[in-house]
């Protein structure tokens, strides 16, 4: 420039002009290296589900059965339904003597699953329907007390009369946050081989609830 003399000018200005390009690449590379090492540290401290934690007294929880497996025959040792059809499984949860939740029916299955999330939409809902998380989360709401329990009543749903598959009394103190597997022997009054009870804190974030319920 005008404040420079020809003496100051480099012999190959086109070559030295790569200085700003090198500076640009250096600045970008330096930032990239620093931010990459930061994200590695962040990755070690991600939020993990608090699965396996004890329930806290006085706190409210979503409780639902995520899986039920029945023995192949009913209480009388006979097939569940007439013909080769399997049982149509549904369950109810009673807490403090009151029915607080009833599940949907899973047709023709010895092994039934519920995700805890369910949306029932009709054609008329296309005109406008308001949904709330309470409607969508299909679970019983209970408050933990170490001395109380819930009653899980599993039935084979029939048009005429539901057949009882088993009636289980689950003490709340035996439950933990997340999935709780319980196995039962076949008896004259029990045809439930296994149930999986999922317990989630009501004040969980939607993301945590969804993560648990999707599993």
């Amino acid at each position, binding site marked *: 420039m005008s404040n420079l003399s020809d003496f100051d000018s480099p012999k190959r200005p086109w070559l030295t002009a790569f200085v*700003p*390009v090198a500076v640009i690449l250096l600045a970008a590379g*330096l930032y990239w290296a620093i931010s990459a090492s930061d994200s590695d540290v962040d990755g070690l401290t991600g939020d993990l589900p608090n699965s396996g934690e004890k329930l806290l007294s006085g706190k409210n929880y979503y409780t639902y059965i995520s899986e039920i497996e029945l023995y192949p025959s009913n209480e009388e040792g006979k097939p569940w339904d007439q013909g080769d059809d399997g049982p149509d499984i549904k369950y109810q949860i009673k807490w403090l003597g009151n029915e607080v939740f009833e599940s949907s029916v899973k047709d023709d299955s010895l092994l039934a699953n519920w995700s805890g999330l369910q949306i029932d939409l009709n054609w008329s809902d296309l005109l406008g329907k308001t949904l709330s*998380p309470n409607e969508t989360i299909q679970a019983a709401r209970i408050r933990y007390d170490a001395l109380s329990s819930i009653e899980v009543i599993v039935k084979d749903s029939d048009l005429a009369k539901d057949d009882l598959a088993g009636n289980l009394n689950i003490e709340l103190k035996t439950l933990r946050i997340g999935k709780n597997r319980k196995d039962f022997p076949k008896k004259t009054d029990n045809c439930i081989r296994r149930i999986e009870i999922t317990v989630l804190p009501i004040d969980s974030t939607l993301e945590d*609830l969804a993560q648990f319920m999707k599993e």
Partner: protein
Amino acid sequence: MIRLLILASSILLGLGLVAPTMTIYPKAGNFSWLVELVDPESVLPVTYSIVGIIAELASINDWFLVFVLSIFSIFFPIIKLYLFWVVSFSSQNSKLINAYSIVSRLGKFSMAEVFVLSLALISLKTLPGGTEVNLNWGCYVYFLAVVLSIATSLKINISISEFVQ
């Protein structure tokens, strides 16, 4: 002075290209909570740098935008600084007139990259469902690099004008 400006602009440009430029907070209107339940990952905030935006566009094969953004956001500013640096050494010789014309032409396109970024932001700001786009510090660093580049261009123009007179 001119070379200091070029170096400062280069550092800021390098940072501005890879630093977080914008964060998108996806929303699905009244059903946001539902989407959070069913597919929580799809509503997580996403932060992009300018290079990240271009890489994202390349991954979805939007080559036109990749081309436009690459030219105006990356290559054009770099070439401009490269030429400025050359011009800063081309004093009092026959190359001055050529350099002067190049710098003058480049000056007209100084705000092109800002214009492209603004367009991208405006289009994202109008996303439905309440989706928000927030600018991050990388955007300001990039703009500062552009401003310094413009200042360099003006300084070079003044110096050349003085020499021609």
